[in-house]
């Protein structure tokens, strides 16, 4: 079972291989070589021990060393399975010995460190009252140029999305003005920039369908 688990990232087979290749193929400081023979000889590297015949196994056996790949979405995560699905019990049984093997005690396995979050998770405050919202709308109506959505969000300590919902339909003139400016800027783009921007938009659409 332990041999199937991936090795720690620092000592993985591929990282060692790439380091070796880098040292072997670094010919920057060396003199000109007229043939490829020396390089070929240096590239004849002993394979990773994972691919060599095992010393513990007497007979032929299967070497399980798959390349890294994205998880299959047809393998439903345990939490998504209905309560009465048989796979739920199976996956729980499968995951428990691994946790025990990875850590010395069960207590520390519960406190296993999670990877760092992309954004710091926050809790919603719900601190704004009706009076605050009226103040927000008043500022936006009186001087939309000074009181942009961003500034209002900072002043009232809320998100820009909330400001846009609260002050929806107030500064229509500013919105139209901004659209006009964007149009003028876009009309000055050349073919290359326009194509690059369009390609980027197409690639972005793929985020929402591929997986």
């Amino acid at each position, binding site marked *: 079972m332990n041999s199937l688990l991936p090795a720690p*990232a620092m000592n993985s087979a591929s990282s060692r291989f790439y380091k070796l290749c880098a040292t072997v193929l670094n010919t920057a400081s060396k003199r000109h070589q007229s043939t490829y023979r020396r390089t070929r000889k240096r590239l004849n590297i002993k394979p990773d021990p994972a691919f060599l015949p095992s010393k513990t196994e007497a007979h032929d056996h299967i070497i399980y060393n798959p390349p890294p790949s*994205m*998880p299959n*979405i*047809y*393998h*439903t*995560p*345990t*939490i*998504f*399975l*209905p309560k009465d*699905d*048989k*796979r739920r019990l199976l996956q729980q049984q499968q995951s428990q010995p691994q946790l025990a093997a990875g850590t010395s005690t069960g207590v520390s396995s519960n406190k296993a460190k*999670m*990877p*760092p*979050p*992309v*954004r710091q*998770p926050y809790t919603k405050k719900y601190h704004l009252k009706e009076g605050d919202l009226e103040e927000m709308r008043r500022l936006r109506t009186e001087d939309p140029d000074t009181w942009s959505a961003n500034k209002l969000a900072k002043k009232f300590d809320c998100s820009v999305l909330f400001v846009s919902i609260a002050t929806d339909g107030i500064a229509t003139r500013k919105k139209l003005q901004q659209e006009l400016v964007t149009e003028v800027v876009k009309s000055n783009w050349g073919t290359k920039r326009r194509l690059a921007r369009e390609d980027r938009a197409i690639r*972005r659409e793929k*985020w*929402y*369908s*591929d*997986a």
Partner: protein
Amino acid sequence: MKAVRLLRWSGSVLSPRTRPEFFPIRQSIHLIQCRTQATAAATIDHIEEASDLSPSQPAYIPEDVLTRLPSPPIEASRTSAKLAALHARLSLPSRLPIETLARTLVDQTADHNPKFNNSSFSVLGNDLLAYYTSEYIICQYPRLPLAVVFAAMYAYCGPKALATITREWGVQPAAAPGGEVDPGFLQFMRLPPEPQPERLGPELVSTQSAMVASPNNPNIVEKRRRSISNRTVYDDEFGEPKSSGIEQSIDLSQGVTMEKASANFVRAVIGAVYLHAGRAASKQFYKDHFMSRQLNMASLFQFRTPTKDLSKLCAREGFQPPIARILSETGRLSRHPVFVVGVFSGKEKLGEGAGSSLDEARTRAAVAALKSWYLYSPLDWKLPSDTEEANAKQWVPQMVDQGDVVV
């Protein structure tokens, strides 16, 4: 009550099919005989006449008679090598007479007489096809959103798929329909050779409002909100507006596209198998030719706000709110960084995505998590139609989901 046992290629059980418009002008016994199928309708003279003919030598029909017929005579189907080969190639049940197979190849634009074209078969076949396909999709993936179910229905039994199946079965179209044509060809009146813009199929079924023709007058295009539940009630099995009867009558005089004729042929074959060989045989035929086709359901999804959808889903199901976490990254400050981000609910990983920016990886991870929610498939799913047979197992109710997330 005595059970009626059908014979092999039992042409004798077919209802009499005659062409009334030919009786007054044609006194020739040949024609009456060649367009009359059952012994029940024929007079004694005709039977005697028929028994005189040896089976190896079919009745001779003069060319001028043949060319007057809109579709090949029924006798011709018994001698057509193409038809027999098609019957064998599709391993159709032996109870399906070869004459009926010939009739499924005649489109209603080739022969307007409903006794000689496949229109009645194709109506039945279409209903069977829609029923079998929808139960297959919904029982296999009970959580699938309805928009995806429509797209999957179109991919399994839409006109494009049926046209492909016709090609795969090796059925060729005749250049023009007529009595002298080999009955093994697919016969339909072609559209005049002018550019006909094909209507695009619902590859991505949108849930937004769309321009729809009003049911009363197809010329008036009105803007109406077409919600998904609206589609289930008013639209056809692919979530598209039903075509009106006026449009069909215009088609009949003009001709049809090859795609439409092929689709009608495949539907008619299923209808004919059902009528002649029964429910079990038609189910088997469907399994062999339709359930064996592969469709990647995951490619039919298109989300708008995946991260929002996922947090709504977690709130609805009582999971902890989803948090995106960086599993691994490389080259953050380089030109080609790669981030691998996983979405976690508590300690459970819901999905994983890779991308060249944190935003991309996070979005892809949310999409993967949503897809793995929607593409849940029970271990032992069973079709309702499988329990119709006498010796079937007890029906166990399938899982019914709450429905897709509405943001």
